[in-house]
């Protein structure tokens, strides 16, 4: 089949990016292979593990299940862009403090999902946090310290500033 390429333009971690991609290019591989943003990981092929989670217009999504062409015109934030002005996002600090990662492979996805949760649902209780973590498979931590890290990040967020991911309003019912 003839290889058709489509022009796309998006803002990745605050920087404008243009590219020509095959329609079948998944956003995850576009970030990794074309932009060199290898922090976003691919851990499965059935859209379940969440290691590839990024923020698309401020909402946590699995970048393995979004075509790069679908992201045309959107804002994408990856783990490399999570820190603001050199300051770590509260989830980055909290995951370190609470030992919320071991091998680190699911961690970028865990951080992006957690950042969305902390920024949009700052009051989520432990049960709600565990439910939100349905979007993540971690084999190392037993989730114990991920839950603690998210709770710590909620506290840090309260102490500090405005949500980062405020470009669009995401919602779940809680």
């Amino acid at each position, binding site marked *: 089949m003839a290889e058709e390429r489509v022009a796309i333009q998006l803002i990745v971690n605050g920087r404008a990016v243009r590219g020509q991609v*095959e329609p*079948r*290019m998944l956003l995850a*591989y576009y970030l*990794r*292979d074309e932009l*060199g*943003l*290898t*922090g*976003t*990981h*691919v*851990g*499965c*092929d*059935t859209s*379940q*593990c969440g*290691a590839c989670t990024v923020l698309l217009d401020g909402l946590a999504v699995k970048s393995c299940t979004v075509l790069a062409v679908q992201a045309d015109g959107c804002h994408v934030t*990856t*783990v*490399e862009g*999570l*820190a603001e002005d050199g300051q*770590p996002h509260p989830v*980055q600090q909290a*995951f*370190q*403090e609470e*030992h919320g*990662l*071991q*091998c*680190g*492979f*699911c*961690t*970028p996805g865990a*951080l992006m999902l957690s950042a969305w949760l902390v920024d949009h649902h700052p009051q989520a209780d432990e049960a709600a*946090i*565990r*439910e939100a*973590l*349905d979007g*993540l*498979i*971690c*084999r*190392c*931590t*037993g*989730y*114990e*310290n*991920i*839950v603690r890290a998210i709770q710590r990040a909620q506290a840090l967020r309260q102490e500090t500033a405005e949500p980062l991911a405020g470009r669009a309003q995401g919602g779940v019912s809680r």
Partner: protein
Amino acid sequence: MSQAIFGERVQRKEDVRLVRGRGQYTDDIQLPGMLYAGILRSPHAHARIKRIDTSAAEQMDGVVKVYTGRDLKGRIGSIPTAWIPPDSDLKAVEHPALAYDTVRYVGDGVALVIVTERALVEDALEAIRVEYEPLPSVTDQMAAIQAGAPLLHEGAPSNIALHWKVGTDTEAAFQGAPVVVRQTFRQQRLIPNPMEPRATVAQYDTVTGELTVWATTQNPHIHRFLMANILGIPEHKLRVVAQDVGGGFGSKIACYPDEVLVSYAARDLGRPVKWTESRSEHFLVTTHGRDHVDEVELAGTQDGRILAIRVRAYANLGAYLSTAGPGVPTILFGLIVNGAYDIPQASSEVYGIFTNTTPVDAYRGAGRPEATYLIERIVDRYAQEIGMDPVEVRRRNLVKKEQFPFTNPFGLTYDSGNYHQALDLALKTVDYEALRREQEALRQQGKYIGIGLSTYVEMCGLGPSQVAGAVGFQGGLWESALVRIHPTGKVTVFTGASPHGQGEETTFAQIVAERLGVSVEDIDVVHGDTDRISMGWGTYGSRTTAVGGGALALAVDRVVAKAKRIAAHMLEVPEEAVEFQSGRFYPEGNRDRSVSLQEVTLQAYLAWNLPAGVEPGLEASAFYDPTNFTYPFGTHVAVVSVDADTGEVRLLRYVAVDDCGPVINPMIVEGQVHGGIAQGVGQALYEGARYDDDGQLVTGSFLDYAMPRARFLPRLETLNTVTPSPHNPLGVKGVGETGTIASTPAVVNAVIDALTPFGITDLPMPLTPPTVWSAIHAARQTGGAS
């Protein structure tokens, strides 16, 4: 100033890069001109390859090369096993990197494609036509040893890959025993699923003849050793690098055909090649774990004294012998089936069996979870049989504090322990008596909770090399460390262990910081690169801290000894009269004069005025071979509820008391235990690989294979007791596998305890809702608890 660094919750050094997305995992590597590899895998469990047509694939744009098994036969050696248990009659069958004649499991490689872009891999694979002649297949080990079962390997007369016996004569004990309990336990096949799929990038330097292989391995030096032989590459021309590795749990120990093929192609084509496993591929081809059928018999008295244990195990080894495959169900299992108990007579007999399934190798715990499961379950069965509380039976049989060092019936010497103390602490933490009262009250309301214990011990910290040799492991199990203090006083540590999530970049820095008085920030720990570390044996079997840390402690001591000689010279006092504390050297009993380690280091490199006989520089290495394994132990307690109408089990509470000796970093130790518990709970309640009658893996994705999720788990309560090991310089014991080893039987014991009113005494894992409900339903039909 004394720095308490050993024992502190120091934040992990590795996290600085990992939380910023700056880890360097194998698939992250991009090289100029890099090609991509894909492996065509057999869709049949057992078949003869009649014909392979690669012409369509070869004509596709972007396809650089297609290799078949016949192309590579004779060019790549058989993939060997590295564990040959003595007196086991092991059938070391051929394992070609690509099948050239017969495929023996779904996933067996039949062709290798090399393409120019990631997206083309599957296009090319789909274009290859293979004609197979399907053969009868067998996936269950019990079926595989029946007469007339399909035979996997022409060279072997049956599917029995090994037969091994060990232990004392238990016959007399069983003959006269007042109570004998018999139970067959099936310990299901598990799929390791580290979150990072395996990957390999290989680059060949056509000028120097050096091949560099970045690989997802737990033991790069073992990979180098094996691959040098398989590929016929001189070992000094082969470099294996494992930078960040996203978990392994045993599944990244083995040397697989895949990395060998990619390396071969990179050398053959003179271009870098990357291969990355998809998750679907991982399910099919990365080694699986467990898969035992264990016939267990326990002899005891009416008053709770265990007299003997006898085990006959049928271990499914899969289609080929994996790197450590034969050692797992024998040495790592059979020698410790008495568990933490002082049982006078014990014996193990193991059959390792070929089947048309994915090869089985180490999975977190490797053999010891299987041993612990059967002893902890049969002890509960025994307690039930004699009408005694399971706590009391344990109390009466646990090895007592004063018995250490304790030699078990298989000749293992348990190093140190205080098992009753751990048991008491766990019971006090959960308030066992109150739980029993609550259980009774709830039963009156038709609600079912259960309390399960596991008082485990495990052997880890592999291990003395002499023992490795005696048990047929084709390698050493010592570890290396090199400590280099740079002229400015900064420190680089090189370890032959290869951590991949366990945090030794931090704990090793803590060990050095404590001993040298240098801050953790000024110490870098280098691992996972055969060019930077001369030799080492890697990370598995909870060995890194006990053995690698031991080597490190010795190396640091050597550095300090040399520095002391230089310091004595600088201070103009005899060497014996120099004291070293918190990074400074003092004349004995005199705190007014001193030189810092940094000053001494600078002098060591300037070498303007060194004492006679002292060479310049300040570094030392150590090759540490432990004198024994370490034996961490503890008590885990699980509390569960069972929904009798749906069969759903909920874990209500989980308390773990572990003793791994002195704790270097409590935060990291807790993390290891948390993750281990989750994996053990996974086996108890959720996980299980299943094959259909045609040998197809029906649990081939996260949609079918249930991984533990955050919602499945309660807060995990972890506590420690501290009993040092006398057998290594730090007194530490491994803790990477304790959670997995202890938790599976604790949870199953809890569920069976909850089901006591229904007369249910055992259920096969995983204890899924339909399994539990069916048992309750059947019991209710016949008049069990209503």
